[in-house]
């Protein structure tokens, strides 16, 4: 319960989680952020380190399906949770419909924000909810695109949502 670091008493902890569907068990330092563990220890470098203070959204990952800033989230809190990074989307080289929508709309420039916005859009699509134009903009508002290509990003998100909706109609569950 008490995890001490000061005198090196006990600053390490076992972390079990799934990353992109695969079970991961790793010994971490309690001081590490989820970003540190994903990027530096597990080499998921699609998780970008941007501002480190939860403003830019470049480090966004899905935690049990919900977008969070991994830079201001203690790695230990991910214990027992399912983490999805951008590396977890495409399967066998085949992009997801959300990724395709970003390609089709030309919504990618330098790539700084791309993993994050694609994951936030994936969360929207997977929620199965309908989003108005303003709601799409709101759900993407935690991402800074340093190329300022917001219009195409919003277009891509709306395209992905539209196509998911059409796909749902074609294959009623």
């Amino acid at each position, binding site marked *: *319960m*008490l*995890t*001490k*670091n*000061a005198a090196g008493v006990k600053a390490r902890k076992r972390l079990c989680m799934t990353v992109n569907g695969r079970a991961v068990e790793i010994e971490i*330092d*309690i*001081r*590490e*952020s989820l970003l*540190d563990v994903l990027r530096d220890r597990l080499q998921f470098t699609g998780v970008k380190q941007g501002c*480190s*203070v*939860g*403003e830019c*959204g470049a480090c*966004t990952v899905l935690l049990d399906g*919900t*977008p*969070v*800033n991994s*830079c*201001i*989230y*203690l790695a*230990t*809190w991910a214990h027992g949770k399912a983490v999805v990074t951008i590396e977890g989307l495409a399967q066998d080289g085949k992009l997801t419909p959300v990724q395709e929508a970003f390609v089709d709309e030309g919504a990618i420039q330098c790539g700084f924000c791309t993993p994050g916005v694609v994951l*936030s859009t994936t969360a929207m699509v997977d929620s199965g909810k309908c989003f108005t134009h303003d709601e799409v903009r*709101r*759900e*993407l*508002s*935690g*991402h800074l695109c340093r190329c300022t290509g917001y219009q195409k990003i919003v277009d891509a998100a709306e395209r992905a949502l539209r196509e998911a909706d059409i796909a749902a109609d074609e294959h009623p569950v």
Partner: protein
Amino acid sequence: MFDICELCEPETLAEAKAIYAANPELKVIAGGTDVLIRMQHGSLAGAGLLSLRNIPHLDEIEMLADGTISVGAMAPFTRIFEHELIRKHVPVLGEASVSMGGPQVRNIATIGGNLCNGAVSADSASTLFALDALLKLETAEGERIIPMRDFYAGPGKVNLLPGELLVAILIPREGYEGMGGHYIKFAPRKAMDIATLGVAAVCKIRENRFVELRIGLGVAAPVPVRCFEAEDYAKGREVTWECVQEIARLALKPAKARSSWRASKDYREHLIEVLTQRAVAEAVKRGGGCCAD
């Protein structure tokens, strides 16, 4: 890596209270979206953290038998905004919740953390002031329930005793029932920004007269404030545009706006008046009244 010397992760509230009683120097961490940022900026160096994230049920939103809506201190803002009870009974709190930070922050940041930080700009604070909310505070010894307006002690300071935890926010039935409400956050950006000024208004209207009006202001003084002069003036009066304008003028009474790099004192006072007009007018509309001039 964060400069943390120890991390306590109790599994129950009783355990958390016992640890905190024995180690009052620990820094409580809820969502971490403020504490970890402060650490990233170099403050709180070497702090020991008491994390409340493993404690179950501390994030629940429910209606108690007497109609009080209880919001668990660990409820994240997204949950509050999306919750059926909040949508139905206290939409103004949802409005304030969704104005805070950005989506990734709202998914993690908690209402309890937002209040315990003591930030005058907390989007939930001015709204909870207007809703006459109460706070349930617990120590290992016992609990006490205090009104929101007794909680703030100064900029960044709240009246928590050593070893005391905020457990829930209580919105009594009289605080929300039959009330129309509106929250306006004024900031240069719509997302990921801190309020230059926040105004929350809730009112009960009957035959186009104010039965009750409550206004909470954020960033208008060192702590969030209620506008009692304006509220007393409104009571029983017919809703007219002139009346709303007078209410907005009186809303300046408790304000102690100051100049900061975000805005000057004069600008803030202008915002208090104009935004109070708009917030009250919209709250009136949502409460079934009309203040067309």
